[in-house]
């Protein structure tokens, strides 16, 4: 069994010593103390564990850490830059787009990937792309509004 010795997480090289078949989620949470990504279902059907591999959203609960070894891993902890929140983080706060907050990091990371792929996402695109993420507290309308607002503000910033 391959042992993974290092990962590239949030722009830094991190030393690990993990069996390759362990889940990426477990290594991030238990070995690297990056606990923003959450366990919700273990089958990739709730999105609470969503992180980015080379900018693409994956379910880290069902991704073996070996497949993440040569990629750039981005987690919620790396999203704010120099203490400045990402527009999606700002928008989630502004719209109170959460209740218990357990699903929130996965929601935000999935939305980061979506807006990275398609900055002009329509409301329908957002609903389609976010449909794999569950918020049992039911903050969906607020999350959609937050993503729409973040999309506008990111477009404004890039002009």
């Amino acid at each position: 069994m391959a042992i993974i010795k290092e990962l590239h997480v949030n722009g830094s090289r991190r030393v690990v010593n993990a069996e390759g078949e362990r889940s990426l989620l477990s290594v991030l949470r238990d070995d690297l103390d990056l606990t923003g990504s959450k366990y919700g279902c273990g089958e990739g059907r709730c999105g609470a564990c969503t992180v980015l591999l080379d900018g693409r959203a994956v379910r880290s609960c069902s991704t073996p850490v070996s497949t993440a070894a040569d990629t750039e891993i981005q987690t919620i902890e790396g999203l704010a830059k120099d203490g400045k929140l990402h527009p999606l983080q700002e928008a989630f706060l502004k719209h109170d787009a959460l209740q218990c907050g357990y699903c929130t990091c996965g929601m935000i990371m999935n939305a980061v990937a979506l807006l990275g792929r398609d900055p002009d996402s329509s409301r329908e695109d957002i609903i389609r792309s976010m449909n794999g993420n569950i918020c049992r507290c039911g903050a969906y309308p607020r999350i959609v509004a937050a993503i729409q607002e973040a999309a506008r503000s990111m477009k404004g910033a890039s002009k």
Partner: protein
Amino acid sequence: MSELIFDELLLEPERYELFTDTLFSAELDRRAFFRIVGGGLIVACVLGEADAQQPGRGRGGFGAPGPKELGAWLHVGEDSAVTVYTGKVEIGQNARTSLTQVVAEELHLPMERIKLVMADTQLVPFDGGTAGSGTTPRMAPQLRRAAAAARELLLDLAAEQGKVKREEMSVHDGKVTTTDGRASFTFGQLTQGKKLMKVIDDKTPTTPAEKWTISGASPPKVEGKAIVTGTHQFASDVKRPGMVFGKVLRPPSFKAELVSLQTRDAEALPGVTVARDGSFVGVTAATDHDATKALAALHAEWKTTPQPSSEELFDYLKKHPSAGRGGFGGRGGPDRRGSIAEGLKAADQQLKATYTIAYIAHAPMEPRVAVAEWNDGKLTVWTGTQMPFRVRGELARAFNIPEERVRVIVPDMGSGYGGKHSGESAVEAARLAKAAGKPVKLVWTREEEFTWAYFRPAGVIEVTAGATKDGTLTAWECHNYNSGGSSLRSPYESANVLTEFHTTDSPLKQGSYRALAATANTFAREMHMDDLAHALHLDPLAFRLKNLKDQRLRAVLEAAADRFGWSKSKADDHHGFGIACGTEKGSFVATCAEVSVQRNGLVKVLRVLTAFECGAIINPNHLKNQVEGAGMMALGGALFEAIRFANGKILNPRFSDYRVPRFADTPLFETVLLDRKDLPSAGAGETPIIAVGPAVGNAIFQATGVRLRSLPMAPKGVKAT
């Protein structure tokens, strides 16, 4: 303390999960207060009658009066820091924010200067649990009084220290200042070197709602930034030095008995410990992955017994009455007035129907989790539970140690919805930690959460009613089997009434769920009322109002209808509108829904408007968030959520098999909040869920002519008539 819990149980028998005896003997040693905080000023609240006489009580709220004892306490430190100690838990209902608001209001202090220590049994006074919408009506007033008393004490201290008349001092922005501005003291300057303690009762005056400035506004969630940056610590994020990971061996089906067990292969794996204590078997290992492998290496043989399935559920419930907590009619026994036979005789229209309610799962996003650690015979457990003191009792019993040697800490948790009143994972983690001799983290898998937690009770509800042509309700008879008594008592006037709750033997482990049986009973009642209205060719809104005297319920019903445009909402082919209302836990709700039913039978809920009134509103935006969230959650139970089971196995214990509401299910939500500053604040986390199902069901009836009398109503769509 067990008395308090028992009183609550008498009120709401469907809290099945609580019906095991729990010992609550250990109390916070009041002399130890200053050992915890050093010096400064402490105000402690003693529970009084006011805490027991909130408006929720009459409607089956958590209103049972407790013995004279501590409710919460507040500390003003020598460094000016204000810390509040409460046994309530943050589960996403935003209690951390709303309780901070009420303290900030009375102390005239910015919210960011206030810290809440919640649900740590070593630091906070006993609390019956975060349930029954009790935090706002029962904890918030205590904290208001504690903060108001602290403010007055700080004024006394300032007057004494500054040799100024007390009337010439006021508290602003965390300072006590003379009106002419010449002298000013920080809270720390006033409490430096002191050890002052004041015990207050429920007579302490507080600021009336009309004068609130921080309560009544919508400050953001206090822990919001920590959440969106991933740094907020949930129970599952706790890590202890030397901690290992645990897994528990589960039987293949409910009630299965362990016949034989071979642990050799598992124990041969590096770093693995096998724990066995009676029927409990578990493993620990260095990683979650290793623990999973070790669990798979256990060879167990089980003896199983045949058990009922969901296919025969409702028949089973009717045929298996159980002794005990029956005869409950909403509060204090069956509601029996007049004669049903006479009432039906007087009716122009009679209607009899049976409604069925499936088991559903709470499915909180954070499953049950616990980290347990033993030190010198003392046990500390971090876990996600709504009832930390009850879990402390469970742990003390499980290990036969005094409660004083058990500490339960509940970090803010990934929701509960009434589903986390018990301490299974805490006891399991503590057993594993004892065997391993190390701290152990145990995270239930989603399948375990779907299988070994408890469910919202299933039920059968039989309604017989009659009304005259002019819409006067002449008879109302309603029997609820198993699901519970909450909201069973009808708010509609009728001379002839019989409502009764009947306990039965439940095939699955069941217990509290957000709003308890108010969802089931409101569903049956509001569907039946709608049916009667249609049979009498009366407008469903007018029919309700004709039989409704409760002014608060009328007000939400009229507000919802008005804002929805009920009078102009005309059904057409496959497109309909529905209305429903109800009251529970001292708050009042009415919901209007618009649905379209596609040719293939699929139901699309287009619009949901809810009018809600819970007395004086503390945080309008967070309240709106609760109303919307409850509405969203309600759609799952209303349309498609159901636990399927057979022979002691759950057949759909995964999100891939158990459908919960998702983004694509989201209707347009509108919320109308009626702010009654003249009335005490009631809780709001539950009641907004109760009227959504029947409003949607009534809309489906209008759209299709099909009356769906089972929750969930349309797991596979609506069959054409």
